[in-house]
């Protein structure tokens, strides 16, 4: 029902498909994005500026990720789109539809079957393979923004590897609260060179970027930046020798649907009992575990 309503509110749906280039973007734009993507892959963790295009969805709703996906897409690709772990949120559905309608690419909800996965706020639980690309939507590409407002100065700090202000921010948290208090979007050091914002994924997902088999690309539409973590790259969360990075703990908790104790769990309230319960945040993975066949 929801999807049908969206179809009518999206202007590109009402025009004939022939009015658009394959995968919506013109070839010039795609070339620009691919060039900048190659540069990003060559300099892991470095933010490459690119000429961000207008898309028929609002900026800040994943246009950076979408532009990456559209520029990478071929007719044989199988695309999966997720938003905070769900394939069926409004945002995921409309992005998936735009991709499918403008390219004819097949879509799936099964992580293992996808060649291209666009996501926001999560990395799928299933380990990604070398033949898969993960595209993450980025709200704020600059990890140093919390300590330095000027773009000119953050660029200089990256160039000079001048990261003491970032360490100071971690230190102040420890002085004030007794421990590192950063949650999602926990800053990471990429291959011993650049500090990078992994996007607001939970800390749970950070290790999925470290020495991964797959390529991860990050696109920020509003901020006009692309960056990348190529396969087999070190991605280490910032931590002190005596105050270590720790991922979220779900000790003693299990998914109410599949019983999983090794996945990232969302907290929710059982409608019937009013009790707090837990369930897999990656809903497709949860269904697959329960033996369901995914579309």
């Amino acid at each position, binding site marked *: 029902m929801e999807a049908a309503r969206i179809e009518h509110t999206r202007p590109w749906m009402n025009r004939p498909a022939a009015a658009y280039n394959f995968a919506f973007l013109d070839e010039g734009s795609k070339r620009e994005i691919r060039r900048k993507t190659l540069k990003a892959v060559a300099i892991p963790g470095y933010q490459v500026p690119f000429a961000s295009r207008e898309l028929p969805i609002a900026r800040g709703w994943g246009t950076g990720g979408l532009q990456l996906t559209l520029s990478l897409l071929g007719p044989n690709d199988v695309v999966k789109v997720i938003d905070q772990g769900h394939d069926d949120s409004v945002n995921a559905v409309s992005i998936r539809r735009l991709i499918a309608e403008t390219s004819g690419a097949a879509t799936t909800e099964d992580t293992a079957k996808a060649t291209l996965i666009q996501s926001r706020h999560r990395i799928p639980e299933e380990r990604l393979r070398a033949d898969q690309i993960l595209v993450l939507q980025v709200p704020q590409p600059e990890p140093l923004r919390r300590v330095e407002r000027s773009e000119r100065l953050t660029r200089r700090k990256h*160039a*000079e590897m001048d*990261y003491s202000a970032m360490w*100071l921010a971690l*230190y*102040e948290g420890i*002085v004030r609260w007794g421990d590192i208090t950063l949650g999602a979007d926990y800053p990471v050091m990429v291959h011993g060179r650049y500090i990078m914002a992994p996007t607001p994924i939970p800390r749970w997902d950070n290790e999925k970027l470290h020495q991964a088999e797959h390529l991860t690309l990050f696109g920020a539409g509003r901020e006009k930046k692309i960056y990348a973590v190529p396969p087999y790259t070190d991605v280490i969360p910032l931590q002190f020798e005596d105050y270590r990075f720790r991922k979220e703990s779900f000790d003693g908790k299990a998914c109410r649907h599949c019983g999983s104790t090794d996945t990232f769990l969302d907290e929710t309230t059982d409608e019937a009992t009013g009790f707090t319960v837990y369930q897999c945040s990656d809903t497709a993975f949860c269904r697959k575990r329960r033996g369901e066949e995914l579309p």
Partner: protein
Amino acid sequence: MIQVTEHAAERAVPTWTARIRADEKLLEVRGLTKRYGPGCSSCHQPETGEWHSSRCPRCGTIWACRSLDFHLYPGEILGVVGESGSGKSTMVKCLYFDEEATSGEMTLSVCPGDGNLLQASSQRKRYVRNHLMGMVYQNPYLGLRMNFSSSGNVAEKLFAASQFHVGRVRRRAAELLERVEIPLARMDEPPARFSGGMQQRVQISRALANDPPILLLDEVTTGLDLSVQARVLDLIRSIRRELGVAMIVVSHDLGVIRMLADRTMVMRHGAIVEHGLTDQILEDPQHPYTQLLVHSLL
């Protein structure tokens, strides 16, 4: 609050110490020039002759520093005195790379391979700022993060020197802050809550964090009450005595210079008009401008 526990001698001795020789110039500056403005044909060789102001009457360019030559020996205190606008702050900011010098040379005996540091890469300059020089600014707002903890202000320098053990960093910060008489109980308070004299002392402890051989102090006591001034001056003298740090002390106050400096140079309109042993300059000033300064002090 996180506890600070005592631990002796766990820091490495800085690598430059072995290279310092008492009879060798630690810092040497030649032809240091800083211009604000484009310059013109009538001021393009500003180092020659006496000027009536540092401003070129034809093009309006300010020649804040005109071809300064000086040096600094290990453990020595060099005073820099001169009226407002004579170029003192600009000079130390150029040495600390806060301002880009228009021309000139600066060499440090502890990094002989670098040649002219004014032309060094930004990474190299950063190394010098973090390890070889400490700076105390005229305005504490330039030198401190007022709303971060005082210990954090010191710690930031230690992070820049790749020390990432919070316990050790806090012990070092506590030691440095105690050295400048900031009570341990207040080490995590932000400098914004401190008095002017305390802020200057936090600046000094931050500047000393990585044991630099050189400290640059720009009007460190200006604007402080007399009693507070005396305490800061005592502190500076004891730091020189105990740590053997060489210093460039900038002040428009000859009284401060007399208390601290072994040698003094007098600046006017962007140029050095006289330099020599502080005692000599105070007893027997040669330049008419210095004579004026000294007599107004008496």
